């Protein structure tokens, strides 16, 4: 009976310790907050896109496709090829000369326009 009482005493002691820990609400440091935000920024899906140069200025209705093309890094050949196919379908007359410009043009920040996921390269995010 003494040992059982001892076990009950330990159970009570462990419960008391757990209860005490539960009441604690330590706050994250500012440094941790900064690091988390830096991670968020680094991992946030790309929103800055590359606009084509004046030679491929498109009507407003087509601007979404040009923004998408401008957003791909020039080195991403596969993405560029896939995108180019759609671009060609929507390019204004004489726009073929602007295809290269679309990849080497000056970057400008614009609002992201939603694009179907099956356009994009990439595997699982996690």
């Amino acid at each position, binding site marked *: 009976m003494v040992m059982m009482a001892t076990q009950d005493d330990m159970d*009570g002691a462990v419960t008391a310790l757990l209860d005490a820990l539960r009441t*604690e609400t330590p706050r994250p440091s500012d440094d941790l907050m900064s*690091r988390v935000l830096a991670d968020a920024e680094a991992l946030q899906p790309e929103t800055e896109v590359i606009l084509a140069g004046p030679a491929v200025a498109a009507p407003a209705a087509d601007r979404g496709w040009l923004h998408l093309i401008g957003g791909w890094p020039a080195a991403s050949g596969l993405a560029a090829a896939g995108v180019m196919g759609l671009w060609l379908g929507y390019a204004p007359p004489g726009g073929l000369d602007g295809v290269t410009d679309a990849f080497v043009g000056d970057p400008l920040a614009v609002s992201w326009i939603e694009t179907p996921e099956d356009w994009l390269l990439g595997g699982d*995010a996690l």
Partner: protein
Amino acid sequence: MEDAALLAAYAGGDRGAAALLTSRLLPRVFAQAMRMLQDRAEAEDVAQEAMLRLWKQAPDWRAGEAKVSTWMYRVTANLCTDRLRKRRPTEPLDAVAEPADGRASVLSEMVEAERRAALTAALGDLPERQAQAVSLRHLEGLSNPEIGSIMDMSVEAVESLIARGKRGLVQRLAGRKADLGYGNGDDGDTG
């Protein structure tokens, strides 16, 4: 705005969504990690890693399948139990130097610190699911149905895990009863 909507906004490029989500989620995640690990540096690492996984998951997050908070509890608990299992055993109390002046308050602080360390070590010794269930119930104060959602199991399974985990903790700590200052007129009150 709900967490899932904020996460979608973040995935859509909204710069402000990350700051809002961080201010909302990080304190909870960090506190959970601290309560389980009792080590600030490790808790910060776990919290940062948990949030990192959330940012990575954002583009694939499916609204309506799970709550963001449920997912965060799960990820944080998993990261914490991984950390606990990798820790080396804690030193016995008699290996810790006593304070030179022997002040009772300082000694009691040492005993309290030792108890906390012993508890986290005992948690680390438990099977992972038991450790998580006990932590979510007794350290986070969640209900059994909530824990069931987080751990993807029935309430009955949660109850069983908690009961076994608690018994496991008591058994492991009972062996260090004297070291931890229990059973010598000290009933474990920390107040």
